[in-house]
Every structure is written in structure tokens, then in C-alpha cells.
């Protein structure tokens, strides 16, 4: 019986060595260790042994069994590894092939830049105000110190709906509207469409976007105006941006200014975009005129404020290098896909 066991051990070992796949290993397992396997058969025959021999043979049989099991497990894990490697080898793909995409659309460049600007002003505590586009002459002009026949009305060619209704030529009417509704402190920006009866060309559109800003509180100074707009310029155009405030005139602010920023294309060296000056005019601003505060129901002796307005289209065009404003309103999908 001892020889039989030794023989089984050697035979099994031989067969395991020759096995090349996991199926064959399973067959070997059944052949030797299965219910009808040769080792099992021998163990069943243990009853015929003498009591002295039984533990010795039993021990040996168990050793053989453990040996075969271990060999089988080792072989199996080797084969599995080989099989896995083989499988992996056969599963190489061309990872340079295009990914499966769900096509994503896009926000219009005007709104994309507007969203960016809104975020900056949110960070400075500004809310967003809105107002009608078909606006009363009163809010668009009169309340802003531009009475009928004022020369400034010529500069802003106005679309009229009726004697008292216009398509707003600027977002500034929101100033008085906001003041009428809100008690100071006021800190708002008001983006929106404005209209001027300009003939259409590469730099003129009868419809374009402005962003108005208004701050009213006790003790607001021109230094605050500069501080706020300079912060905006640095956040939007980059930390290295320098600003320049030049005196200007608007009927509804006093003092008034225009703000230039150092050209963000050439960094102030002078280029085509800034026409060699190194500066780009970005917005008009000033301290809210006391007449305007009064029209908004705010006492100019108690409160002061500043306001600003900028043209969004121009900023978008400079930022993206767009040379024709008409592209913004034509909506060619090949154009829209670029942003």
C-alpha cells in the first residue's frame, strides 16, 4: 500500500506537470482526489490494515493528499496567471481612438464673459438688478439729467416707441429704478440689452450689451470708486493690469471719469489692439450726480454713491480677438463652437 501511495504521488506529479490548462487540472483533481479518485479508493481500503499500520499509512496517505493538493493549487495558480496574461495580451486596444462623447453645447460668448464678470462682482457684494428694455423716456434720459433737446440725446441715437417710450439706449435707467425700490446700502450691477439706431457694420450693432453698476451708501468716495473698479480690472484682466482714470463728462455723474486698462494683449507695450497706446478704454464712471440721487428718493446730503457702465460686446471682442461685432448676433454654429 505504501508503494501504491508512492506511485500515485509520482503519477499525479507527472500529470500535473504536463497539464497546460485549468480544465485538465480539474480532471486531475477528480482523478486522484475526487469521490472515486484513486487516493480516495486507497483510503477506503484502510479498514483492511492492521491497527499498527493504520496510523502510519493514514499519515502517509494524508501527506500524499496534501502534497497533491498543493501541487494542484500551485499548478492551477500558475496556469491561471498564464491564462490571465494571455487574455490581457489579447485585449490590447488602440487607446488613441476617439472617446465616446455626449456632445456638449456651449454658452454664447457674450453670456460667458458676462457670467465671469457677474462672479467677480458677486465676490464684492454686488447683486444683479434688472429693468425693462422698452423704457420710459423719464428713466432713460430725464432722470439722468438729460432733458429733451439736450445735445447728449444726439450722441445716442434713440429708437422711439412713442413720445414717452424708448428702447433704452443705456442700462443707466436702472440706477433710478433701483434707488426708488431699494434703501441704501445699494450695491448692484445691471447687465442687459441696449439699443441705438446705428447702422450695422463691423464695429456697430443696433443692439448690444451694457453692464451698469451702482453703489450708494453713506460716505462713498471717489477713492472707493477707484478701488472697486481697479479690483474688478485686476480680477478680470489679470493681476498685472494697471488702470488709468481720465476725467470725462456724463450728465448723470459728477465728477465723471473714463477708465482705461493696460492693454491685456501686449501688456502695455503698444499693439494693434490698443492702437499702439498701450491702453484700452473699458468703461465710463463717476460719482452719482446729486440730482439723480434726489430723483431716486435718496438724500444727497446724507448719501453719496458711484456708478459705472461698460460695453460688454467690446470687451468680448477684444478678449477673444473677434474683429466683427456681427458675428455675435449671427450665431453661426461654427462660431459658437469656439467658446
Amino acid at each position, binding site marked *: 500500500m505504501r508503494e501504491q501511495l508512492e506511485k500515485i504521488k509520482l503519477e499525479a506529479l507527472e500529470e500535473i506537470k504536463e497539464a497546460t490548462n485549468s480544465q485538465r487540472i480539474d480532471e486531475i483533481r477528480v482523478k486522484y482526489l475526487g469521490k472515486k479518485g484513486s487516493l480516495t479508493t486507497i483510503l477506503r481500503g484502510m479498514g483492511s490494515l492492521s491497527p499498527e499500520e493504520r496510523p502510519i499509512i493514514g499519515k502517509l496517505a494524508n501527506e500524499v493528499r496534501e502534497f497533491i493538493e498543493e501541487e494542484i493549487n500551485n499548478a492551477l495558480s500558475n496556469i491561471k496567471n498564464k491564462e490571465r496574461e494571455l487574455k490581457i495580451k489579447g485585449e490590447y486596444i488602440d487607446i488613441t481612438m476617439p472617446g465616446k462623447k*455626449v456632445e456638449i453645447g456651449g454658452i454664447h460668448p457674450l453670456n460667458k464673459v458676462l457670467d465671469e464678470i457677474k462672479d467677480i462682482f458677486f465676490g464684492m457684494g454686488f447683486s444683479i438688478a434688472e429693468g425693462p428694455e422698452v423704457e420710459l423716456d423719464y428713466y432713460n434720459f430725464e432722470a439722468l439729467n438729460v432733458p429733451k433737446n439736450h445735445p447728449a440725446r444726439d450722441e445716442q441715437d434713440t*429708437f422711439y416707441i412713442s413720445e414717452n417710450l424708448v428702447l433704452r439706449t443705456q442700462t443707466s435707467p436702472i440706477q433710478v429704478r433701483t434707488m426708488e425700490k431699494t434703501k441704501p446700502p445699494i450695491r448692484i450691477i445691471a447687465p442687459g440689452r441696449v439699443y441705438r439706431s446705428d447702422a450695422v457694420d463691423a464695429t456697430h450693432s443696433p443692439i448690444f450689451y451694457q453692464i451698469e453698476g451702482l453703489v450708494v451708501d453713506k460716505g462713498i*468716495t471717489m477713492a472707493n470708486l477707484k478701488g472697486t473698479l481697479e*479690483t474688478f480690472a485686476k480680477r478680470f484682466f489679470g493681476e498685472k493690469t494697471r488702470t*488709468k482714470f481720465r*476725467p470725462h463728462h456724463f450728465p448723470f455723474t459728477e*465728477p465723471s471719469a473714463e477708465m482705461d486698462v493696460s492693454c491685456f494683449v501686449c501688456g502695455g507695450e503698444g499693439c494693434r489692439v490698443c492702437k499702439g497706446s498701450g491702453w484700452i478704454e473699458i468703461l465710463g464712471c463717476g460719482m452719482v450726480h446729486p440730482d439723480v440721487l434726489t430723483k431716486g428718493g435718496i438724500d444727497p446730503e446724507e448719501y453719496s454713491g458711484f456708478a459705472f457702465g461698460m460695453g460688454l460686446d467690446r470687451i468680448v471682442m477684444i478678449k477673444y480677438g473677434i474683429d466683427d461685432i456681427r458675428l455675435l448676433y449671427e450665431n453661426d454654429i461654427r462660431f459658437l463652437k469656439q467658446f
Partner: protein
Amino acid sequence: MKVPYNWLLEYVDIEKDIREVADALTMSGSKVEEVIEYGKEIDKVVTGYVEKIEKHPNADKLRVCQVNVGEEVIQIVTGAENVQEGDTVPVALHGSTLPGGVKIKKGKLRGVDSNGMLCSEAELGIADDDSVHGIMILPKGTPIGVDIKEILGLKGGILDFEITSNRADCFGIYGIAREASATFRLPLKEIKTSFKENDENIKDYVDVEVKDDLCRRYAARVIKNVKIGPSPEWMQQRLMDAGVRPINNIVDITNYVMLELGQPMHAFDHRFINGKRIIVRRAEDGEKFTTLDGVERTLDSSMLVIADEKGAVAVAGVMGGLNSEIKDDTTIVVFECANFNGPNVRLTAKKLGLRTESSSRFEKDLDPNLVDLALDRACHLVEALEIGEVVGGKIDIYKNPVKPYTLEVDPNWINEFIGINISKEEMADMLKYLGMKVEVGEKLKIEVPTFRQDIRIKEDVAEEIARLYGYDKIPTEKIKGEAVEAALTKEQRLTNIIRNVLVSRGFFEINTYSFVSPKIFDKIRLPEDSPLRNTVKILNPLGEDFSIMRTTLIPSILETLRINYARDNKEVKIFEVAKTYHPAENMPYEPVKLSIGMIGKVDFFDLKGVIENILYVLGIDKVDYERDEENPGLHPGRCAKLIVRRKPIGYFGEVHPEVAENYEIEDRIYVAEIGLMPLFEAYKAERKYKPLPKYPAVDRDIAVLVKDEVAVAEIEDIIWKIGKEIVEEVKLFDVYKGKQVPEGMKSVAYSIIYRREDRTLTDEEVNKVHESIIKSLSEKLGAQLR
């Protein structure tokens, strides 16, 4: 406004480069838009004396000149024929530059050394139409070896200012000089106005009557023994530099005074003033009048004219008449120097389409007190040019003289308002340079001259101080004070969410004009009586095609699809969030709408899916889709009304083939238009957690044959109604027509998921419900189980 630099220097002694001056003036409030420098590019061109000229040994048309250029005599070969020995000429030396960036170097011409070039006027960039052909010959006695720019007065240049509407005083060079004086804190020189009058009386020549208050002041002087001729070259040059064409000495003087002081003047030929009476009156409606430019114009009673006894001789403040024009044989001149109501001049000029140097100044409402200075200055120039004799006395009708304005300002308030800290004495000093009289006490008591009508309140004074102090020197400070709550409104937030859903589904946002053509309504087959045809109309549109404010976004999105389709962009998915405009009692109503449009490999259900995505993200349930056969712009069989909480809030579907044809698109088009406010109202923010199921679900499929016209919604209604206790989900997975399905029928297949929250379902329970569903479908819809 163009200001020749040397003219400016006549009134302020600035010793600075023109560019530096331009920058400083811009920063103090007089914006220089452009600096035009004379002879900027000319370098190393000097005067030279031609000592000797010989024939070129190898070329008939060339000559060899020995030219003394001061330090040496150089040899230059020239092709010009007009140069003679003994001439003084401009010489471009070796290494010199001419206008246009032309560089001159020494070289050989047909074997003979040439060390530079003799220049023509054209080559120096100073030629006008009448310039001599050939080399420029300078006057005898011109010093040799001197920079040509000095000889020709090419130093300096022209400053072109943008003048804002509030600064009427800066429409004259003297006003700019005052600004320069304040900017650089240099004295402003007085303008020369002295002259002699003869012992005659103007009353014997002309009489003036002002019949209308639109003329605030009318002054006149008479000049006799006038010798009409060209004005001196320096005057012509200055006029041209300032952009005014020289005419003759008298007209040039009026223009010169206008450019200098900003006060327009007019000169009449005394001969042609009928009855020797000048009447300032309103024009008659339909009155005909031919202006100096030879155009006959029809006037109306809103306009002011200068007339004589027979008729108009000038449109007040705008342009004179051809009938009283100064001619070569004019001997007696009436100088008019008046002040007219600004807005009225502006309107008249606008109505006549005739904006002139004069009207553009008057419309700013000039200072009536400028009249004396200008009239005297004109007479001074007549005398200085020796072209006439000033008749004694002047006419001056000035009913309500304008007086200086006085105000008091607290200097501390100025410092606080601007955020600076300067002394009241310094403030007073600044204001004095601007022509104001200031008494410094606890407050500044300021007398504002009449030419500064724009200074009335303390803020105006603050601006003067701030700009002369320098905006760039004002510190920058963060806003102090209580924090303001900043947040998006619900509408703004939800709009962003909707835009994001659409972008994530592959849609591009567009931006289209809010005004459209009234023809669009027919194009989208809108019924004649549709309320959408009631529009807000523009009185002065850019054209018929842009004349009404849109009441629907659909035509705009269709037009955008058309443009793209025509450019071969055949796969387009776009949307727009924009206002529509609807007439209402006081102000138009401007609701915001969403429009969606698509062409390409898409169908109705792609569009519906996107809308469902939006509704899902907004948490809106209780949505119904109703067939909308009434919508004539859309395909009657492929169009739905979107009903939220039983109210229609929009519609979507395939565009009617005729509409598609109107937009020249040969593909199926899908569009939607949905009101945003109703969506926002239906928005449900709250979401509540429901425990995850503890018990297993039972999944049963069901496939039935129904008639084509049965809507799946009807089937689903029945499934939900019958199975409401245990049905968890109903999923449509197949709709099939064709083989094995009888004509006029369709096969509809669902997967129904049954589950109870409180225990495991038994097969029997499920079978019972499932059977009754099948039974009910059969009874109500005639459905046959497959």
C-alpha cells in the same frame, strides 16, 4: 477739435514736448484723441547752398552739384532741372529719413559719387496742390546747415481734442489755453483786442431789431473801405491746420475768431442788406432760402433767421445766405456776433441736415458775454491786417445780461467726497487758474465766470479740484460699511440651471435681435387674429425688417437655423433665453421665454427628452402633453402643448413643412417655446428622502396589440390606475409596427415593476393585479395580449 500747437503757445508759455502736453491735458480733462506731428519722420535734412553745378560725365539728364551744408561741401547727383548755382535747397544727408520712412544713403549714380539727395516739397511731405515741380528752392539768405524742420516751422504739430458737451468754453483755442494754464499752473496771456474806430456812427449804416428771445444777444460792427483779398499765409496755415478752408481775409477773420474763442461770427456784404435793417425773427413756414453752399432750403417757424426787409439773409447760428455773401468787390462789411438759444440751433441744424462749425458751437449754449471779446478781436485783426476801417460805435442788443454765479463750498467736504487731503489755499489756487474768483474763508466763496455754465453745485467744484489734482493721485480704497447681501434671485439661478441642462445636452446658446420684421407672422403661418400680432412698434426703425419688437422667439430661432443651413451647417442644436415684448397699458410687458431649435439627425422625441430633462431638474411633475392641432406653425400630427399644473406654458414639435419651406430648410425642424416664469412658479425645491426598498421587486413584461390611434399615455394611465397599490414603475420598451402586426395596429410592450414597501409580494398577488390590468386594457382600449 483741432488745435495747432503753436497757436496754443501764443497764450501759454509751455516749454514741453507736444506729446507730454497731450498726455497732461488728457489727464486733466481735455482729452487729446490724436497728436499730429509735423515733419515727425524727417531726420538729418538740412539747408544747403549749391556752390557749383556740372554736367554728369555719363548721363545727359543728370547733373553733379557741390553743395555746402555748413560744416562741409558735399557732392550730390540730381536729376532735377530747376536748381541753379546760388540756390539754397533742402538736403537729405547720408543716413537721413524722409516722410514715409524713406532712408537716404550715399552711393554712385552712373559711376559718380552722390552723398545725399536734394529734396522736393513732395519728398518732404509738405507739398500741396500748387507746389512747384522739382527741388524746393528756399528764400535767398536762408541760413545754411540748419535743420529743415526749424526753417519750415515743422516743429510742433496739431492736437486733436475730444470736447465734451458740457465744455462749450473749450470749443475755442483760448479755452484750451486756459485749461493748459491750469494744468501746468502757468499764466494765461491776454488776448489782443485793441483797435481804433473812425468818427462815423454805425447807426448811419445799419439798424438791428431782435423780435424773438431765441436770440439772446445780437451785436454788430461795420467795417468800411474793405480790401478783400487772401488773408496772410500764417493765418491761412492756422485755419487749414484747424480744419477750416481759407476763403478771403474777411471770412477768414470770422473763422479765425471762432476757432480762437469758440464764438461763431458772420460777415454780411452791406450792399445786399435791403433797407439797411437787420431783423432777427422766426422763419415763416415754407419760407425758401438759399444757404452759402448753394442749396435751396425750406424753413419753418421753429427756426430763427436773420433777415432784412425783403427776406432772410442767414439761418441764425447755422449758415449765412448766398444773397449777402462777401464778394471780391465788397467794400462795406457788417460783422455779426450774436448768441442764440443752443437747443434751437441744434434742432434747426438737424432739420436742415446742415451741421456746421458754427451750429456745433452754438448748440452747446455759448456764453453771451463772449460776444464783446470776439467782436473786438475781429476788429483788432482787421486793423492788424490793414484791410479796413472800423466804423464808430456798435450795435448790441442784450436784454438779459448773464451775470457770474456765486457759490460756497466747504473744502473739507471736497476732501472727504474725493478721498484726498489738500489745503483750501491750494484748491483756491487751482480754481483761479480756471478763471474763477475765490475768497478763502472757512468755506471757499467762488465766483464762477459766465463761460463756465457747467459749474453750479459743489460736486462740480469737486470735479475741478479732483481733475487738476490728478485722478491718478486719488488713492484707491475698498468700500467700507456694512456688508450687503449678494445673491442671485430664484429666477436668475433657475435660468442658469436651464441653460446648463441645455448645454449638457449639446445645445448652443444664441443671441438674436429683439426687433424683427412684421412679415415674420405670415412666415410662421400665425393666424390674422392672433394676439401675438399685436406688437410694440418702433417709430424710427432701421428699416421695415427691424421695425417691431418680437412677441415670439420662434422666427428668430428659425432664421438662425436658416442661416446655418444655408452655410451647410446641417446639424444644429440651439437655444435662446430672451425677452418678448407685448403692448400693455403703460409699459409693455416683457416676459422671458426659452426657445429651442434643432435640425439634423433628431426627431420629436429628442426634443421632448430635452424638455423632460429640464422639467426633471426643476423638480416639476404633474406635466401633461396635449396634442396641439391648433398651432398652425407646427406639424399638426407632431406638435404638443406643454401643460404644467393644468396650464399651458409652451409648445414644441416639428415645424410645419410650409414654414420650413419659408425658411428654405429642406430638413425637418424641431422647435419649442416655453415661458420661463410659469416654469419658475412650478419649480419645486424640496426633495424628500424615501427609504430604499427593503423587499424585492417583481418584474413582469406585457405586450399588447392596440389600434394605431391609441396613445401610450392611455395605456399607462390604465396600468397606473389598476395597479396603483403595487406598481412601482412602468417602462415602455418597444413599439412595433410591421410584420406579424395587422395593418392599423401596433404592438406596445411594457416592463412593469411591482413592489410593496412593507413586505415581499407573493406571485398570486402580482398575478391578480397583472391579470386585471390586461383585462382592463382589453375592455377599455380593445387591446389584445400578444
